[in-house]
């Protein structure tokens, strides 16, 4: 069972990398761009049949290691 986890900086935390990427895209001529936030992506493959249990474990992984919740948010999505 695979899960896709994205970790991004919280809205009110300055994301200098995302800002620079966004500015560069604007310079490349994309005028209708609002903003870019840069984050991290994890693909987690679990040897577990019970999807609720697996998801709970992935959530725990995010809280304990993958994300620093003081500055980061995480999103978990079950991948097909």
């Amino acid at each position: 069972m695979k899960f896709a986890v994205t970790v991004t900086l919280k809205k009110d935390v300055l994301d200098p990398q995302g800002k620079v990427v966004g500015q560069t895209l604007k310079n490349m001529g994309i005028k209708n761009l609002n903003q870019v936030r840069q984050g991290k992506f994890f693909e987690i493959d679990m040897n577990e049949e019970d999807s609720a249990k697996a998801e709970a474990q992935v959530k725990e992984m995010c809280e304990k290691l993958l994300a620093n919740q003081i500055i980061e948010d995480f999103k978990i999505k079950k991948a097909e």
Partner: protein
Amino acid sequence: MKSSVIVFPGSNCDRDVAVALEKLQFKNSMIWHKETELPKSDLIVVPGGFSYGDYLRSGAIAAKSNILSEVISAGKKGSLILGICNGFQILIECGLLQGALLRNSGLKFISKDIFVKVQSNKNKFFNKYKTGEILKLNIAHNEGNYFTDKKHLEELENNELIPLKYSDQKGNINLKTNPNGSINNIAGIFNKNKNILGMMPHPERMADKVLSGEDGLGLFLSLMN
């Protein structure tokens, strides 16, 4: 005085700290991160470097290593803990210190000599300095931009929990003298009980006149006091 320096794969300031400590007759042991027991120490140093190649977030992997649970329980019992640079990042990731160290606002790795102003000497780490004294120390980091919420920042400011702030040679503390975007020019913080210090500048690099200067030596002398 007995000290322990924790060593991770990727630590690179561990020997510099050991040299500074041994110069002052500390009985020092180097402790590999896989150890599960910490020898009785008056001081535990979490040194600078790039533990685990800064994978995931600086300090995040080291914060989950075997020896860290020993360091955490020693810290909670009141042992003196000094985290320098990557060590500061590790102390934050393991929860001994609050807040976060973000990427430098200028997006560049900064390695240079800077000035810091001692904000308070009423603690175990800076009692050999005068409050207001200006020190020339070295910084070398990519994630030294300290950030915390308003409430914690007020707590830090009101309880003398910020011993060092970035300044210029005259002691001016403002945006111009802030190398990395750190909130309120913070270069180091204490926990509530002031037994745990995390700082981005490297005092161990300024502990010998012949090499680079002696402005950092006072910190180790203070600890012996």
